[in-house]
């Protein structure tokens, strides 16, 4: 647009400036856009490489080798092919944990999405006290997962739980109920708790998506006599699709990695009724070390499986919901 000072023009070729020109340019920190981008991005990329990407590759490598066990830190490792995976896939606990995790994830996330959309539609318009309502409704999101687990463990206590107390008072239950120690119910209880905790987060994301839909679309729809439901189905939902994609990825991946909730709520029990994949993996790696029944080798194999499933989930979401923008 405006004329740029020739001194700072970015496309002056280096060669024309000569080595001396280039050095003085660096001394004065007069970098081109590309040089500045390299300077600014290198620390982040190196950091991610060291703390995010290297560990993933190392886990992958470790999953094909014998274990490195906490009690025997100097133990050497040797290549064993798919042996760790064979042990993993022949373990009933692994398949149980996979089932628990898939149920927990794919029951809670769609319900959260529906609740979140409903909440967002409710909170969409301005009203008195909206700020306080939003703070109150968003608060469960900010609760630390494991502390939330402790709170609900107390509220669902088999003898003195307030949830039992309320249900007894209104006549639904005759006596306190063991929501967490009943093996048929514990997973439902845990799933309900996460729906309670995260629906507000969904609402927040949906609210941002709703506010980006231009009002004039609704106005013209109203003039054409479209019902509320038609407006919702033909305007709101299609335009909300990218937002739903973001919300689904944001929620599915953390739900799939649930750890703090089962740890603090039930410890994975009763039996293994609420043992999620990450809890199983953590226990295999740290609580049952030993060359045969666990250790880091088995833990690494399980972690690699978790990574692969997480990436498949992300790919499927992007593949089915992403539509390149029409320009």
């Amino acid at each position, binding site marked *: 647009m405006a004329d740029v000072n020739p001194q700072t023009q970015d496309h002056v070729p280096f060669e024309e400036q000569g080595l001396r020109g280039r050095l003085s340019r660096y001394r004065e920190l007069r970098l081109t856009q590309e040089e500045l981008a390299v300077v600014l991005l290198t620390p982040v990329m190196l*950091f991610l490489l060291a703390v995010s990407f290297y560990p*993933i590759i190392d886990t992958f490598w470790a999953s094909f080798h014998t274990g490195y066990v906490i009690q025997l830190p100097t133990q050497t490792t040797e290549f064993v092919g798919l042996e760790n995976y064979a042990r993993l896939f022949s373990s009933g606990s692994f398949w149980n944990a996979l089932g628990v995790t898939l149920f927990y994830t794919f029951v809670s996330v769609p319900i959260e999405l529906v609740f979140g959309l409903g909440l967002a539609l409710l909170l969409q318009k301005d009203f008195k006290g909206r700020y306080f309502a939003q703070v109150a*409704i968003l608060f469960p999101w900010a609760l630390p997962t494991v502390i939330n687990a402790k709170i609900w463990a107390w509220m669902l206590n088999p003898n003195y739980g*307030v949830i039992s107390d309320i249900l007894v008072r209104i006549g639904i239950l005759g006596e306190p109920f063991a929501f967490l120690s009943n093996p048929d119910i514990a997973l439902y209880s845990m799933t309900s708790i996460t729906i309670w905790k995260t629906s507000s987060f969904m609402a927040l994301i949906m609210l*941002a998506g709703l506010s*980006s839909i231009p009002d004039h679309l609704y106005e013209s729809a109203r003039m054409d006599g479209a019902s509320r439901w038609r407006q919702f189905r033909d305007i709101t939902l299609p335009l909300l699709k990218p937002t739903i994609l973001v919300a689904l990825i944001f929620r599915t991946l953390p739900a799939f990695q649930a750890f703090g909730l089962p740890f603090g709520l039930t410890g994975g029990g009763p039996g293994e009724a609420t043992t999620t994949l990450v809890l199983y993996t953590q226990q295999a790696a740290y609580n049952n070390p030993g060359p045969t029944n666990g250790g880091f080798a088995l833990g690494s194999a399980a972690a690699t499986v978790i990574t692969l499933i997480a990436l498949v989930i992300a790919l499927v979401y992007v593949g089915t919901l992403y539509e390149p923008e029409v320009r």
Partner: protein
Amino acid sequence: MSVIDRTRSVELEDVALWDIGRKFGFYGSIIAIALASMFPVIWILISSLKPPAELFVFPQEYLPYAVSFDGGFHIVEQYPLTLENYHRALQQRPVGTYLMNSFIVASGTAIIDVILGAMAGYALSRLRFRFKLPVLLVILFAALLPFISRLIPLYRLAIDLQGTPFGTVFGLNQYLGLILPYAAFQMPFAVWIFQAYFKELPDSLEEAGLMDGLTRVGVLFRIILPVSMPAMATAAIIVFIYAWNEFLFALTFMTQDSKRTITVGIALFGGQFNSPWGIITAAVFMSLIPLLLFMFLFQKRIVEGLTAGVGKA
């Protein structure tokens, strides 16, 4: 249904009644939802203020005082309010130390992510360079990687470094042993918040700076960063809350009680069935005070940060 009939036969009173009813229903549902969201915290507060013996009764008492009527109104005490659980929690467990550890770790994480996130976010949103899309995709891809897959190698690394000079930087029971992984895990979100914010700034900001003879680095430090305080606050708050709440790494890396963060400290308070609920509820409420303050003071920023780029991308 009947609504439509009513508006057709315009009867003023009916319309007004319907309006009041609708308002009542709207505020009623808002209050019900807000109460459902806050009830667990309220219940923790109530439980923590009860005398320990009052916790283990059924049915439970809700309020310390009740109004009874026998000819006249009387206020009846149901249970005495007491801070005993708080005293005992602070006596038996280093709750203050846990909170301080959490604060140090969360602040350190927020500082690293704000600095590095602002740098990368600026480059990705306002500079032209080759391979921009691949770089952005690599950063976002890092956000998809499960935490558990990064845990075991980093733990092994920390063990291997024990006893070496590096062990004081990255190791078990070192604050940086948590800060560095947390900062890396939240980096994609920090970068995303910054690039969404920088994208909205007008181009004229940089042009004016360049015209005045500033270098690109000068433009970044003298013009862009000073106007991006809101984005910094947003990123810092979100990252802080994440780091404050994290559990898996904190449990694994902090094996000394004096280095544990508040989430680990509380999670390890006792078994499921014989838990000392009096001191747990007191400690839980103490751990929530900073979060409650954060939510009330910074709700707008938090909402902005969580929804950065939603609906625009």
